[in-house]
């Protein structure tokens, strides 16, 4: 617990990833900044992470524009199978009755 302010690279980069979504706590940010003072590798990771977040964001914007649909043919196929299941079920129910 004495090392509350000194965290490992694994922990630091976890906080760094969390902060990319603005979900790291204030205390975590302090831990992270302190870690950067002694660790250039994680500082580099953080810089690259900002770049990657922008890349992911641009993919997110692309994706959210699309609305994909099941083709008519595939829908007909599902309908057919559903119909079949329905008749099987009703057959079974009749037998029970």
């Amino acid at each position: 617990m004495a090392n509350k302010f000194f965290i490992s690279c694994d922990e630091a980069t976890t906080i760094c990833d969390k902060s990319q979504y603005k979900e790291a706590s204030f205390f975590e940010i302090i831990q992270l900044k302190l870690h950067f003072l002694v660790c250039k590798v994680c500082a580099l990771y953080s810089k690259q992470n900002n770049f990657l977040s922008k890349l992911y964001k641009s993919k997110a914007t692309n994706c959210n524009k699309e609305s994909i649909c099941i083709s008519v043919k595939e829908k007909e196929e599902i309908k057919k199978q559903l119909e079949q299941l329905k008749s099987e079920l009703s057959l079974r129910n009749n037998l029970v009755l």
Partner: protein
Amino acid sequence: MAEQQHILYPDFWVDKHSDYLFNFAIARINNYDLAKDLVQETFFAGLKSAKNFEGKASERTWLVSILKRKIIDHYRKINSIKGQAEVKMNFYENGDNEGSWIEERVPQSWDNDTEKSIENEELKQQLDYCISKLPEKYAMVFTMKTIQEFETEEICKELEITSSNLWVMIHRARTQLRKCIEDNWFKK
């Protein structure tokens, strides 16, 4: 005044709900065929348990709740498959170096990580490739959080995981992706 009772009309399910359910599924599992299968299974399960429908929720809400179960089942299945697409660790897991970067996975300087390259189509294809290389559960959680932009709380609720669990997966996915993009894009 009595509350409105909802009734199921299975004959119209495919026309009325399949696109909605499909988009719901694909946002979470990012695989066309699998999403389609889950929608189909949802209709089947719905038909089989139609007699348990109490009419309190709308037909669509009820079908979505079945689909959500199917998605959790799928997540549990991929979560329990051992050895499939082994995760490469980026940090030592034990010993004196626990929590430190593994030498060959230490981030290297990128010379062309400029704002311009974000719009580069090839880089985007590279990203798709790298996401496809992730173990499925990491890809699923990463995509839900980062690409589909779901709230942390919502993902945790839907997949029945804790938030620390989620952050570990996001962290592993992102360190993997960083390394994959570095190897395939920046090292050329």
